[in-house]
């Protein structure tokens, strides 16, 4: 490798890295500012350019000017966690069935069923928003965590099926056949033999469910108001012309923090080649 080539390579990596971290660094420095540090034009360095303060971070717990972040945090955890769990359970079952058995109902066969599951991702949220609103209102589930969990299952189930079908396809059929020869029912074979062997797939699918559930804004925004409020909605509510940028930045940083753990897990699976089987 020539020096020139290496120089270009690492410059490109450095440039993109800077682009990636800039918003985070900006949010971090802004979160320690007060009005003086914001309205005088952009400042970057604490102590040198502005006097750092904890106002923004304190406002997360009910201090003036911000939002109380604790309740939305708990709501977000419950809704995203439950919806992901339900999607993984229902999704693995359906994916295993689609991977091992042949279904036929009229002209509908396995590939059509798989396509039906995955194709739900095409649906623009706005198409579903109005009927979801009316449906939840009719079920008296508007502004509730259960209502949102139902909606999120519809969003996440396709992801779980999509990833898990390919995973199960990569597990040799002989394994379940052996288990069934030993006297297991198909269901026992699935739980005792297949599931332990597909743990990486389940984790990858779970991570993607968490990402897309935690990051949804639109449904939380249109289907909940006061009793239930998820993090993205709570943070965006601060986004007005008189926004205290320091509270905004602090709440943004604390909202995205849990997903950084997910990034660690996804990178592990990516580098060990586990993802390759899951996403094609």
């Amino acid at each position, binding site marked *: 490798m020539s020096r020139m080539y290496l120089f270009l390579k690492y410059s490109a990596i450095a440039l993109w890295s800077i682009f990636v971290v800039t918003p985070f660094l900006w949010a971090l420095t802004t979160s320690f500012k007060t009005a003086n540090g914001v309205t005088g034009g952009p400042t970057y360095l604490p102590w040198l350019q502005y006097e750092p303060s904890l106002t923004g971070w304190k406002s997360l717990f009910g201090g003036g000017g911000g939002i109380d972040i604790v309740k939305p945090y708990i709501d977000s955890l419950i809704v995203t966690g439950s919806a992901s769990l339900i999607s993984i359970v229902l999704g693995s079952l359906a994916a295993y069935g689609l991977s091992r058995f042949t279904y036929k109902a009229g002209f509908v066969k396995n590939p059509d069923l798989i396509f039906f599951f995955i194709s739900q991702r*095409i649906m623009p949220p706005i198409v579903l928003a109005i009927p979801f609103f009316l449906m939840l209102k009719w079920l008296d589930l508007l502004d509730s965590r259960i209502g949102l969990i139902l909606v999120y299952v519809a969003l996440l189930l396709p992801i779980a099926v999509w990833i898990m079908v390919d995973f199960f396809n990569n597990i040799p059929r002989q394994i379940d056949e052996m288990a069934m020869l030993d006297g297991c029912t198909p269901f026992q074979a699935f739980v005792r033999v297949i599931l332990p062997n597909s743990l990486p797939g389940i984790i990858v699918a779970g991570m993607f469910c968490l990402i897309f559930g935690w990051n949804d804004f639109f449904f939380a925004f249109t289907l909940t108001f006061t009793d239930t409020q998820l993090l993205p909605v709570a943070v965006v509510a601060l986004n007005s012309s008189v926004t205290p940028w320091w509270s905004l930045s602090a709440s943004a940083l604390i909202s995205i923090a849990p997903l950084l753990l997910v990034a660690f897990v996804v990178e592990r699976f990516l580098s060990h080649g586990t993802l390759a089987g899951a996403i094609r």
Partner: protein
Amino acid sequence: MGETGLRRYKLAFLLPGLLTLLAIILFPLLFTIRVSASGWDAITPELNWVGGKNYAALWADVRFWQSLARLGGMAVGTVLIQYVLGFALALLVWHDVKARRFFRLLFLIPMMTTPVIMSVIWRTILHESLGPANDLLYLVGLGPYPWLTSGGWAVVSVMIVEIWQWTPFMFLLLLAGLISLPREPFLAAAIDGAGPIRTFLNVTFPLMATVSIGAIMIRLIEASKLMETVYVLTSGGPGTASETSGYYIYIKGLRDFDIGYAASLSITYLVIMIVLLTIIGKVLHRALVGGRS
């Protein structure tokens, strides 16, 4: 085990998921189709029958067709840029790089963060006088640019944020593909004395064709729903300069409560997206994989 016993198990695996999805999706979809033939609005909130009136009206709705064309341009534009950047980044940290695990992790992070929350941060970054974007560009003698206050720039800003957010997803899919490639073709190319560029054109790129199509299609599908970034960053403005179809339907339906009309817009939007995405998928497949497979 008898045939009927197996049949029971077959259905027990598939049905819980299938029925749940059908119950949650099918009712809303059918209901939307029905509502689209009604005059439901804020004054008469009822499911009456107006036939194809809404569809006739949307035919002449310039604002809708403009938003659709704008969405198409933005989606195709950002996804192409994401593909080129994502592929380049995946190649950069594929092998022969120091601290590659660290850079892989770093490059993945934006897709893990909540789009609307990051858009709120981007809004402060792109603020004309108080944000760092213009301040830093001034240091290298550029700007100031009206990021969010001029029509063309508002579209560019939305695209920058989308590229920041979703290039990592493209990167993830393509790197996973690269990691799973067989080694033999590369050894053969090395024995033939092929340089990096020739290896890429003759070996890597063709081997990555299927993965590329998959990644592009997944991103196009997600990009065709673009509206949250627009909502937070520009609210479709200035005027309607950065309005996408989803956002316009949102305004019509959930802000003006012109629900019948919004339903007809969303059905039209959905049908057009399905048709376009199917055509693009077929064309891409033919172009990259050719007659094979």
